[in-house]
């Protein structure tokens, strides 16, 4: 579904991705783990076209999107829950969801909204609350809900568990699993390597802008190097 071939990304002179190749197949949950500054967010954002890859090739559902611009890419069936959630703080919960469903027609909007409210009943209760006043966990739910409103076939999640209490984290991982069961393809970036790998069909380890390991989630969980570096021994 998504394929990266030898992708390089630069921020000015800094090379943040140094020839990354990876693949996510339809219906999979793939996790990407790596230390701070490894280039995980850069990788997701490069697929979204912001920043653009300086070389290499990115294919989404067979189409070359390497040089496409961000809005076009994001309207083609891909959605992202970015690092730090980035909900529109001054807009209400419902308005945020409207922004996600900006391009869907009224009927689609209503049915997708119903789906999102089923996944996150809290959002239904808080529809008219200004989203900037919500708790971190609620904002994360909103960010996921907003992404789902675009009706994507594939979703990127950039550290959805960051800064949340364990109980909320579990809830979010359950939702991710549920989405996969409904046919969504998921690409998950996490520092919480343990949970991310347990959930994942396959995983990649990114170090300094390069993929250093790839395997099934289960194998990575018992991999000696991974255990040392990311699972606390």
């Amino acid at each position: 579904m998504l394929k990266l071939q030898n992708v390089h990304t630069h921020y000015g002179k800094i090379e943040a991705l140094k020839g990354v190749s990876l693949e996510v197949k339809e219906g999979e949950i793939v996790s990407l783990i790596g230390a701070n500054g490894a280039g995980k967010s850069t990788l997701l954002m490069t697929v979204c076209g912001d920043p653009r890859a300086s070389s290499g090739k990115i294919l989404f559902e067979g189409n070359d999107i390497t040089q496409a611009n961000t809005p076009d890419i994001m309207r083609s069936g891909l959605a992202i829950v970015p690092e730090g959630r980035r909900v529109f703080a001054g807009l209400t919960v419902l308005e945020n969801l409207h922004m996600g469903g900006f391009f869907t027609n009224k009927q689609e909007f209503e049915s997708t909204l119903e789906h999102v409210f089923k996944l996150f009943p809290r959002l239904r209760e808080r529809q008219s609350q200004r989203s900037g006043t919500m708790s971190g966990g609620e904002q994360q739910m909103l960010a996921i809900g907003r992404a789902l409103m675009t009706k994507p076939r594939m979703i990127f999640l950039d550290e959805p568990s960051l800064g949340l209490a364990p109980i909320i984290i579990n809830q979010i991982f359950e939702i991710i699993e549920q989405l996969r069961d409904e046919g969504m393809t998921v690409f998950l970036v996490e520092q919480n390597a343990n949970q991310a790998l347990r959930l994942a069909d396959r995983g990649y380890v990114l170090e300094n802008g390069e993929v250093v390991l790839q395997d099934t989630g289960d194998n990575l969980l018992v991999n000696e190097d991974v255990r040392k570096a990311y699972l606390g021994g």
Partner: protein
Amino acid sequence: MLETALYFIQQLLNGLTIGSTYALIAIGYTMVYGIIGMINFAHGEIYMIGTYISFIAISGLIPLLGIEYLPLILIITLAVSMFISSTYGWAIERIAYRPVRGGNRLIALISAIGMSIFLQNYVRIAQGSRDIAMPSLIQGGWSFGPPEGFQASLSYMQLFIFIATFITMGGLTLFIARSRMGRACRAVSEDMKMAGLLGINTNRIISLTFVIGAALAAVAGLLLGLYYGVTNPYIGFIAGLKAFTAAVLGGIGSIPGAMLGGLLLGVTESMTSAYFSSEYKDVVSFGLLILILLFRPTGLLGKPEVEKI
């Protein structure tokens, strides 16, 4: 006693008249600032162009069409002027700002000033640099007060300014608060990158803000053109500065702030002229600007500065 009160009321009415047009222009500054974090220094020129288009429409187009019914004249003039001014607003962004966006802010600023000078001279060459008179379409009014003493008056022209401003601002407020595009404007001004990540073409939203700002400046152009009865290629500069002051006073980036700031500035000016001297009017306005920048840079209704890229 009654006389003093009437005099005060008169100044208040005059101040609100001018203030509401400042507010209309100020909204253009504030919306553009809210979305791309730059001051569109050519915005005052859009207002100036608006006065010229109104003038040309009233004295050229309307007689050509043989229309004599006043409301129709005003509506057609307004529509033509808003449309053409919006096109200018849109083109300014495309030509002068978009190519330099994302670079150094100073470059955008210089580009804006350059655009402002260009537009001023373009109109000067096309229309001449002398004052041209606008026909006074709306005459008459009400006076109240004792027949012997001071009489306060509200002209129909002033009333027209209040009503037109009220409708325009009400419409804008509804648009921003309720409509799909208005919501997108708010989202983009909060987090442009995120809006792009939802598939929204942020360039279009930016263009839309320029178009709206220019359309409102065109409304102010017709109103003030008729009110003062005269225009020239240089009026954009001072009007732009005043409206910019109003926007900063209310809190740049905030639309209600621009409305409030405009009205406050107008009233301050008319009170200064009435109770001190009209020569001090501009000193007080710009003194106010400096005070705000020093002591409350976020303005009356503004939020703390968020760094825009």
